[in-house]
């Protein structure tokens, strides 16, 4: 199983997990995502035979897309908050705006994709991010982007439709680009996993974003 420390280094992990509060918000949020109660009995986070890691977000590709949509909502909200915070200006602010705009495009594309498959797009979570200093915000951005890239990588092989897979891959590599830029700004390796990027499973990803979902 992938761990956050594999994605961004142990220090980043501690920083990441130290911020934010409880899990009640996420639990309520996830409950709202479930498409029917019948799926919960077969949902095992461990991913047993036939069980889908993303079943709580919907069946099959819809569940994977809604999982991705939830993460993209988070990223979009994060960058919007960062822009408003006034902590950045000049070239860094432009980079943040650009990344935020791209995440918003991902939200749109994923929403449309879920609808095209006959699914109901996951609701936008209510989020809250600690925006104390430019440095801590960049660190959080780096962690979020590295995690986002790993989340897509973790689901790629589970996607059934080649078209959905093509779309997910087109987004996945952009998340990888974002992550490399933030790692560069932070003075960290652009490829923290080495020559082969590591995936993150759903449980790990959700646990990591939990502190930022407030309802």
């Amino acid at each position, binding site marked *: 199983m992938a761990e956050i420390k594999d994605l961004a280094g142990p220090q980043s992990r501690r920083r990441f997990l130290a911020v934010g509060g409880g899990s009640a918000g996420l639990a309520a949020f996830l409950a709202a995502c479930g498409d029917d109660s019948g799926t919960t009995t077969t949902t095992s986070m461990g991913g047993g035979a036939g069980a889908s890691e993303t079943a709580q977000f919907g069946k099959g590709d819809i569940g994977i897309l809604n999982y991705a949509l939830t993460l993209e909502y988070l990223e979009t909200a994060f960058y919007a908050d960062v822009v408003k915070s006034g902590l950045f200006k000049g070239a860094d602010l432009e980079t943040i705006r650009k990344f935020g705009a791209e995440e918003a495009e991902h939200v749109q594309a994923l929403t449309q994709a879920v609808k095209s498959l006959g699914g109901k797009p996951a609701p936008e979570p209510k989020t809250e991010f600690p925006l104390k200093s430019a440095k801590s915000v960049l660190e959080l951005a780096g962690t979020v982007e590295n995690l986002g890239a790993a989340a897509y990588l973790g689901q790629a092989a589970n996607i059934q439709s080649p078209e959905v897979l093509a779309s997910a*891959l087109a987004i996945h590599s952009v998340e990888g680009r974002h992550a490399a830029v933030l790692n560069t700004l932070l003075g960290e390796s652009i490829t923290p996993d080495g020559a082969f990027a590591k995936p993150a499973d759903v449980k790990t990803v959700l646990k990591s974003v939990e502190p930022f979902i407030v309802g």
Partner: protein
Amino acid sequence: MRNALENPELAAVQIDEDSGDLSRSDVLLKGALAAGAIYGTAMVGPYVRRALAMTGGSDVDILNFALTLEYLESAFYAEAKKRAKPSGELKALVDLIASDEQQHVEALEATIKQLGGKPVAEPKFDFPYSGTAGFLKLAQTFEDTGVSAYNGAAPMIKSKEVLAAAGGIVQVEARHAAAIRLQNKEEPAPEAFDPPLDEKQVLKAVEPFIV
């Protein structure tokens, strides 16, 4: 060595209806309409063509296609260490990328063998550039092309394990691409969706460097 790139199986634009392999070609056609909803209807045509262009290829074919690109990148960076004379921060970046590309070559060769295939021979390359600026410009082209090549080919991969491995490589290529673009003072992530390229487009892009 040109033959490796002009592999007729890779270039074939056909669907093998009698192969009994329902896993991809059928799904690709049936799923074509869904692409319209994701990218807009204007994107459906190119996607279907790209899908059809690759359905003749086995996983070994696709991996050999990827291996050819990795040979190119690996040779390019290994040579650049001496020829482009990078220093400081750029030297560290070139060393890192050279090592990553060499590891990709080795991993792809091993995977092809595991699947019972034969890795294509390494072509001889010639890279027409001069100086650090020329190197960086070509590096950006190769990295962006690599990302788009993997993204275009990956949906045709049949094995989940091979797909996951290719995903782990393409993300690293994307990271390289962004870092090289930063060196060039270019937008590191110019588009919200990295465009896929089919194998013909990729081969056209890299053929000038194969001698």
